[in-house]
């Protein structure tokens, strides 16, 4: 039976020859993930189940990233619960401060995910790892607690929507613009219970970093997972990071898709999501030159080295506009270190940015860069819901790193071409 890559991974992990959309399957999990917000509840579930041991101490990753370095007593307690659980069960992949960064940046970087894997995380952006040709989906804490104990979970096989990107990208247009455009097309509930498969000549040329950005936001369309077929670029990325080689699967040519969208990219401009929804998309030429109070470059969507590098290249020798607070947060310690080595950090400091320690930062409005009433921010993250980054009467716009960089210097939402 012809299958999509998602179906193949699910079939393999269910011990089945084939699966088809709508079926409920029980699958083995290769890696289970939780963070400082979701782990404590999952641990509570694990305990209430009466479980004594975790299913596999090497297949669990616990990443404190949302409120670290601990922002207050309560969040310190949450991390403590997580840390103590990790110690007690000798969890191999617990990331202490100094090693920790954003979960979805750290895990691929450390080679913990290989193509063909099945990863379940108590975080909605777990779908990021689809960039590597893995099946990965977010769940809540109870599901994760049960997985910690059993290593298994139930899933409904999703039908797949195929996205085919064709043509040639203009300068200043990349993965973030492609996914924002796609969200505008599908809407925030356009892919609920579905898998999104990113294909076409354009995706073949995208770096891993840009693929992570796109897969990351699959959940913004409500998708269960987003996935790329792994290729040479994936292989190169893996070779530097993991001793496991992974399973390089491809969708069968006659696989069944519920829907297909062809997206021509030739005339695509940089895209911006306006408040208060990631599907409220406009090309930059149609966005009002909104005056900004804050620009945030970071998050699991765009806190990778390439993102910082692109921004720094554009910003060299310039200054942040008066009245703009420019916050940059590298997604992991190694990105931070590399950014120092390459002079990116110095460039950004000269521009007037403040550089935060690797963590989620202001992305979820909990820590380090919260917005006051009436303030407006441009962010490279993935959500701009009401109150996402602070006061319920603040506003968040979403864009790529280069648009964010240009806007920080100009002081209003602007294209890199305006520099």
């Amino acid at each position: 039976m012809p299958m999509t890559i998602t179906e193949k991974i699910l079939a393999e992990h269910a011990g089945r020859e084939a699966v088809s959309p709508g079926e409920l399957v029980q699958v083995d999990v290769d890696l289970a993930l939780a963070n400082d917000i979701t782990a404590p509840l999952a641990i509570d579930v694990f305990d209430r189940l009466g479980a004594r041991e975790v299913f596999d101490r090497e297949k669990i990753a616990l990443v404190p990233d949302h409120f670290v370095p601990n922002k207050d007593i309560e969040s310190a307690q949450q991390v403590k619960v997580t840390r103590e659980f990790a110690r007690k069960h000798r969890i191999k992949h617990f990331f202490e401060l100094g090693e920790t960064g954003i979960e979805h940046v750290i895990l691929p970087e450390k080679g913990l995910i290989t193509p063909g894997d099945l990863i379940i995380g108590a975080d909605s952006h777990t779908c990021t790892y689809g960039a590597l040709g893995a099946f990965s989906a977010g769940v809540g804490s109870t599901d994760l607690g049960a997985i910690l104990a059993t290593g298994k979970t139930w899933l409904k096989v999703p039908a797949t929507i195929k996205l085919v990107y064709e043509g040639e990208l203009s300068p200043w247009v990349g993965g973030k613009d492609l996914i924002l455009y796609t969200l505008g097309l599908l809407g925030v509930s356009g892919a609920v219970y579905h898998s999104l498969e990113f294909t076409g000549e354009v995706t073949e040329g995208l770096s891993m970093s840009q693929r992570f950005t796109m897969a990351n936001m699959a959940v913004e369309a409500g998708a269960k997972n987003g996935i790329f077929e792994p290729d040479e670029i994936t292989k190169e990325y893996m070779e530097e990071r993991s001793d496991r080689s992974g399973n390089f699967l491809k969708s069968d040519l006659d696989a069944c898709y519920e829907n297909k969208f062809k997206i021509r990219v030739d005339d695509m401009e940089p895209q911006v999501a306006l408040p208060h929804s990631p599907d409220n998309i406009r090309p930059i030429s149609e966005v009002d030159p909104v005056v900004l109070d804050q620009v945030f470059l970071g998050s699991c969507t765009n806190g990778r080295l390439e993102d910082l590098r692109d921004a720094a290249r554009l910003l060299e020798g310039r200054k942040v506009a008066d009245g703009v607070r420019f916050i940059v947060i590298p997604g992991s310690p190694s990105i931070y270190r590399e950014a120092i080595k390459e002079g990116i950090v110095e460039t950004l400091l000269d521009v007037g940015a403040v550089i935060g320690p690797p963590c989620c930062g202001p992305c979820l409005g909990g820590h380090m860069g919260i917005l006051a009433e009436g303030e407006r921010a441009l962010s490279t993250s993935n959500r701009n819901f009401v109150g996402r980054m602070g006061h319920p009467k603040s506003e968040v716009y979403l864009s790529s790193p280069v648009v964010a960089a240009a806007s920080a210097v100009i002081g209003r939402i602007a294209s890199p071409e305006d520099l």
Partner: protein
Amino acid sequence: MKIEGKVWMFGDHVDTDLIIPARYLNVSDKNELAKHCFADLRPEFIKEVGVGDIVVAGINFGCGSSREQAPLAMKTAGVGAVIAKSFARIFYRNAFNIGFPVLESEEVPEQVREGDSVSLDLSKGEIVGIEQDKHFYARPIPDFMRDILKAGGLVEYLKKR
């Protein structure tokens, strides 16, 4: 399983940041979490919500983050069930897992209004608008999910087996 209460109406795409803003997620205690349910969207909610009240909403309820704190805060605040045209995937799963009834219906959100009294028979999937004496039927739930709900959540369900 019968639930009865007043209707709280919400629109489409109510996201988990609206159900409970992230700034309150630095604790795991459900009673603390419940205090901030719909804090930004409807600050009066937590003061006025009664046990068994029913949240009625449009499409894609619970979109956004995977935080189980969202259904947990609602359940602990006293909400008896959510009836929406559709739910975001993770929220839907989380709700069952903690034994919090969520039902899909196209009609109910069109036909009931804020403050209406509604009763709900979970085993039949029947929803009754008491004042108008109208009967609606929610989309059926798969058997094993109903069993999870009956048991009171996934933990209790797994323990029983």
